[in-house]
């Protein structure tokens, strides 16, 4: 018989096997044996969050900015239930997370013991898979499989629930090098040449094509982004991106139409509506993208490339489904395209020139423009200045959820993948600050900014303490309008300006709050002081809370009103007045 290891030791042995360097967590009774073991594993650093939700979002930020799985460690009961929001968030946005939770000892399971909850029951619908380990002999294999499930196919969160007695029990440590089983749809990602030729043929026949790309490109790895840029250059087709896909293609490139969807650009949404070929690469036809499904892009043939077969045909019927990882699809497509279609870019130019003329016409609407002011800081202006003053650095941006998130997506231009971390699917207010903590842990020395709203950021403000403890110089750039801005905007447009509970009275003094946490507080009130103060924020090597007081009544435009197709956008306040008064509420 070989050497015996405790369950807690086995946990770390598997973490080491997977080259885990950081775990985000919070200790508690049922997970103490694992915390006790921490000291013996110097290559693994534990980041102590201030709340398990914060640990979870930090692990998400870590994963999304590094491409590695994020690991979190929480205790039983409230530790696990607090982690649920972060797990659900990771599930919706396909972020690989391995969550290890302590559980009451096996003999107490089911007795309503202290800090007991049915963790695997609660997290079943918000993880790709979860395990309750009842025999220490299974622990190594389960932990190993947890990493495999989290990181293969469409990535996502998994949870391993380990009762306290299992953490103490000893057994031999064996990690079998078993044959890798394909998970998630269990299809192998090879795209056949026949499929690729079909794609190419559809591309050749199209005179109004568009690439519609999403988070799948980012999740596939940096190589996928390179290949996407190559494909767009080979074809000269216009490209738009979902919220999650920003950065896969350069935001300042002339072929890029900006983000699409509810708050996307006029040109992107009209191009989606009017195209004759839509090539969806790694996006999922989310309802914020499609608007009214029956009238979604009525004239187009649709190709959908997705690693998750259940994403294809779920919301929108497509003409050519391709189940594949984005990188391997693009590799095959680009290769085939170059072999068979030399000089396509030039020979096809006249074929799509009318299309580009249409797009340029839509572009001239300048749908992201806004009326600037000398007296009050417009939130869009603040994001634009932040972009201009930071774009020469390798910047990582996280956001909370709401108007500021959309303004950030519209006005901050990304040129690289993995630089943009935002809660898209679940829309979790309070995501951005802890996510920034995780991003900074994964990317020391880089500039990490959370573009925040004052309401969101208060939900997880406690994590500033984490940032200070680990000397993580994250910048919390708050667009402070004193309202839950997006809620207020909807109330203005849909609920007769009844601003029910969307104004936050008694906001804290953010500068003093920053000081209380031991970080730097900066406040900007006027447009003319903005640049200087943003520079001050960027240049200080400490965590900063930047309180940027902005116009409280500004709305986020352009927007597709609910129930409307892509070609009926509201461009600004003038549009909104006209349509609401003339035709009543039916439009919004």
């Amino acid at each position: 018989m070989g050497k015996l290891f405790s369950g807690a030791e086995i946990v770390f042995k598997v973490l080491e096997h997977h080259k885990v360097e950081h775990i985000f967590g919070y200790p508690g009774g049922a997970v103490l044996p694992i915390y006790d073991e921490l000291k013996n594993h110097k290559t693994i650093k534990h980041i102590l969050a201030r709340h398990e939700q914060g640990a979870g979002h930090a692990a998400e930020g870590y994963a999304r900015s590094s491409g590695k799985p994020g690991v979190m460690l929480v205790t039983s009961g409230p530790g696990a239930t607090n982690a649920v929001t972060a797990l659900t968030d990771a599930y919706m946005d396909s972020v690989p997370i391995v969550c290890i939770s302590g559980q009451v000892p096996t003999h107490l399971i089911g007795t309503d013991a202290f800090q007991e909850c049915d963790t695997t029951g609660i997290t079943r619908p918000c993880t790709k898979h979860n395990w309750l380990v009842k025999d220490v002999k299974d622990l190594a294999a389960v932990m190993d499989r947890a990493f495999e499930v989290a990181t293969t196919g469409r990535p996502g969160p998994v949870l391993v629930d380990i009762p306290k007695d299992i953490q103490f029990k000893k057994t031999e440590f064996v990690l079998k090098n078993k044959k890798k089983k394909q998970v998630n749809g269990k299809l192998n990602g090879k795209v056949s040449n026949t499929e690729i030729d079909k794609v190419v043929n559809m591309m050749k026949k199209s005179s109004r094509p568009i690439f519609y790309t999403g988070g799948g490109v980012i999740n596939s790895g940096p190589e996928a982004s390179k290949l996407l840029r190559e494909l767009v250059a080979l074809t000269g087709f216009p490209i738009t991106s979902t919220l999650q896909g920003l950065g896969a293609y350069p935001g300042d490139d002339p072929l890029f139409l900006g983000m699409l969807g509810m708050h996307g650009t006029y040109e992107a949404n009209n191009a989606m509506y009017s195209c004759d070929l839509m090539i969806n690469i790694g996006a999922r036809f989310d309802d914020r993208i499609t608007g009214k499904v029956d009238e979604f892009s009525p004239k187009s043939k649709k190709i959908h490339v997705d690693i998750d077969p259940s994403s294809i045909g779920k919301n929108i019927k497509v003409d050519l489904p391709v189940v594949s990882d984005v990188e391997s699809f693009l590799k095959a497509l680009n290769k085939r395209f170059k072999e068979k279609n030399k000089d396509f870019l030039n020979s096809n130019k006249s074929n799509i020139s009318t299309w580009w003329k249409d797009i340029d016409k839509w572009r001239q609407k300048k749908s992201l423009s806004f009326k600037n002011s000398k007296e009050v800081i417009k939130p869009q202006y603040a994001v634009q200045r932040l972009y201009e003053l930071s774009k020469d650095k390798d910047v990582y941006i996280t956001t909370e959820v709401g108007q500021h998130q959309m303004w950030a997506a519209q006005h901050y231009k990304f040129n690289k993948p993995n630089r943009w971390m935002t809660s898209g699917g679940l829309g979790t207010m309070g995501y951005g600050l802890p996510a920034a903590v995780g991003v900074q842990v994964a990317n020391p020395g880089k500039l990490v900014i959370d573009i925040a709203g004052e309401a969101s950021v208060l939900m997880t403000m406690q994590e500033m303490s984490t940032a200070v403890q680990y000397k993580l110089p994250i910048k919390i750039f708050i667009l402070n309008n004193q309202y839950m801005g997006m809620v207020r905007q909807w109330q203005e447009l849909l609920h007769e300006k009844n601003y029910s509970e969307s104004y936050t009275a008694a906001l804290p003094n953010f500068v003093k709050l920053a000081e209380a946490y031991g970080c730097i507080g900066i406040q900007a009130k006027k447009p003319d002081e903005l640049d200087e103060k943003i520079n001050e924020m960027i240049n200080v090597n400490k965590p900063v809370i930047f309180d940027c007081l902005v116009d409280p009544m500004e709305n986020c435009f352009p927007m597709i009103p609910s129930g409307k197709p892509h070609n009926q956008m509201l461009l600004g306040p003038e549009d909104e007045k006209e349509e609401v008064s003339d035709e009543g509420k039916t439009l919004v």
Partner: protein
Amino acid sequence: MGKSKSAYSEPGKLGKSENHIIVVWVDNEAGVLARVVGLFSGRGYNIESLAVAEVDKKKHISRITIVTSGTPQVIEQIKLQLTKLIPVHKVADFKRNDPNILFKELALFKVVSSKKNREKARKVCKKYNSIILDKSKNSFVIQVTALRRDIDKLIETLNPLGLVSASRTGAVAMTRGSEIFK
């Protein structure tokens, strides 16, 4: 268009609902049934009946048979979502009226009534492979195997004849001929 006051779009046109039988082969491990059933309830799919038991003792494989209804798009989603679950090995889907598929359900009925009514009850059960499992002075328990809709009808017929308790397994299914579903 209706008056939407919501941040969400309105429902589109609905397709025609069809009845399907979904057969799922799963690892017989803790929580696997909850995963399958939770997927149905979480995503708003129907379950009309459910039958489950281990069919391979060595490999610990259970076979779950679910009778459901939904538009073709929903049925497709059910299959794909089930396939994504880690302990699921394969998923088969049959239309209820597929002639190549055998569907059977077993039911037990307890009838308490006069001799005359019990005699009638026995007769109506006769053509469904009925077996009397238990008899007393004024009652019997009878087992039948039949299609779901036949059992539905039987229950209606037996009600006035003294049916006091009915128990059904839910449908199970198998393909005809030598082929098996891979």
